[in-house]
């Protein structure tokens, strides 16, 4: 993968007095700036208007503190026994899931059941994942390089995450009956979303997470509604519910690591902070040979899907689903689909930065 220069990260760490999202501090017109300054002096009104405002106090002092904190949250999700129910909310959708996570001498074992809609459950033993779909008598088998999901948090080691996010503590709250410490990760630029995280004060397990849009309001959230942390977990709780899957169909999702740079693909100037974390070849939607390059800034991820042939009926354009933006476009003979948990401008920037030079034969 050829990754040319990353643009330097913004360094302005000034906090907005009202606690509003930094993106809101960027005026688009002089009149708006004027209005903004007036609004700051009218405290009651500004509080009324900024529904997503929060009063964040002390910033995490050093980069090392920030990295240590996020790593602790990540490890808490990987190294503890816990079971509980959490909800996911995005726009008009809300779905609940039950998770059981067990650690033993062989590693991680997890059972995730979707409680709404079609019955499905994911059984994970380290990187091996099986999704059971009883209605269809179907088992989907996947082996993944990684399978972290909520309450895990990070895509990569967060070694320089504070270059792109301003971390600060914002007091304590109760989540799922437990005392939670809230931290705020304000995006330092407009090319990524911010996050608010609530982690268990005693165990550091992530209990609630919100993605914050450019207006400073949550656009997606995941939150435990009840949880038990620690203690022994009976191994039967991380086994599939279906005792007998004789006659079920098994389908395999192959995800094969590949070097798309050798094949001629590069991203000349990705969104600052986003670095390649994974490149695979996989199949889905009835199509094979789909390349997927994943870029991440540690928290958010952007996938670039490369297909040799445009899917039937595909048109170039943008789409949005909650915090996820999508750009579909043709690139020579190839079809690109860029999907990311980032503002639309960032996804478009990634789309524009993709280049292909056929390798010399």
């Amino acid at each position: 993968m050829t990754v040319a220069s990353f643009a330097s990260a913004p360094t302005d760490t000034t906090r907005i007095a009202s606690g509003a999202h930094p993106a809101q501090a960027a005026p688009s017109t002089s009149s708006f700036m004027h209005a903004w300054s007036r609004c700051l002096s009218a405290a009651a009104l500004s509080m009324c208007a900024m529904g997503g405002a929060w009063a964040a106090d002390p910033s995490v002092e050093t980069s090392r503190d920030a990295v240590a904190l996020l790593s602790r949250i990540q490890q808490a999700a990987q190294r503890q026994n816990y079971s509980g129910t959490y909800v996911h909310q995005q726009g008009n959708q809300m779905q609940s899931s039950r998770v059981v996570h067990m650690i033993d001498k062989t590693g991680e074992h997890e059972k995730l059941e979707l409680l709404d809609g079609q019955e499905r459950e994911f059984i994970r033993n380290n990187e091996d994942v099986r999704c059971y779909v009883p209605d269809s008598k179907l088992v989907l088998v996947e082996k993944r390089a990684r399978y972290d999901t909520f309450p895990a948090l990070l895509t990569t080691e967060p070694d320089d995450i504070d270059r792109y996010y301003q971390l600060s503590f914002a007091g304590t709250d109760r989540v799922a009956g437990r005392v939670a410490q809230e931290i705020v990760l304000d995006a330092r630029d407009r090319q990524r979303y911010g996050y608010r995280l609530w982690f268990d004060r005693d165990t550091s397990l992530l209990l609630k997470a919100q993605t914050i849009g450019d207006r400073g309001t949550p656009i997606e959230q995941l939150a435990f509604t009840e949880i038990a942390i620690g203690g022994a977990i009976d191994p039967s709780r991380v086994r599939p519910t279906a005792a007998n899957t004789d006659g079920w169909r098994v389908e395999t999702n192959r995800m094969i690591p590949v070097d798309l740079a050798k094949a001629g693909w590069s991203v000349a100037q990705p969104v600052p902070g986003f670095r390649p974390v994974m490149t695979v070849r996989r199949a889905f939607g009835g199509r094979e040979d789909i390349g997927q390059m994943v870029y991440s800034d540690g928290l958010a991820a952007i996938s670039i899907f490369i297909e040799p042939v445009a899917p039937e009926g595909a048109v170039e354009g943008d789409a949005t689903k909650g915090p996820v933006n999508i750009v579909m476009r043709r690139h020579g003979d190839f079809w690109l689909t860029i999907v990311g948990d980032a503002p639309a401008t960032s996804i478009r920037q990634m789309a524009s930065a993709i280049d292909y030079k056929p390798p010399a034969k």
Partner: protein
Amino acid sequence: MNAGQNIDRNAPAAAEDARIKVSAFVDGELDDAEVDRVIDALLASDDLADFWADAHRAGDWMRSDEVIGVGHGGAFLRRFSATFAGEPPIVAPKRKGLSRSRRFWIRTGLPGASVAAALVVVAWVALPIGGDDKSSPVPSVAIIQAPKADQAAIQPTEFKTVDPDRLSDYLAAHRDVTPFAYRGAAAARQASFTTPADASPAP
């Protein structure tokens, strides 16, 4: 005597003018002097301040797919609906080349159907927490994309012709590798990432 008191003292028509000014203020369409007058009016009138807050919320809700807060949706919806119902249907030719005023014309001159659509969007978006929507838990991207009022009035929705299931595949494939993601998104897609050669009896 400030502008707010002037506005409050006047007849309903003046109050309506004040609201239009506030609405324009929210959209960043006023010059500095007008901004001063509107802010003074907002400071002097609780009703106007409420209208301002509602305008912000309405704008946010109509322009994004944000998480809905629990507990304030109903009251806000009633005020929002009343606001829309009471708004004069100004029918005027669309001015060309004035992007700054585009949203103003949409706001005040939105065709009836679009106004209704906007209200439906807000009601639809507000339903889920306590609502009884029994439809598919994962609506298509095309549905999400379409109902934004101002976009629907101005831009074609590029993805209307794309099979939403196909986009769901991309979303799910992306979320396969994103920790901070809801696994249900991946689960929502149908099992379509297979080849016949892989099919075999379950162990």
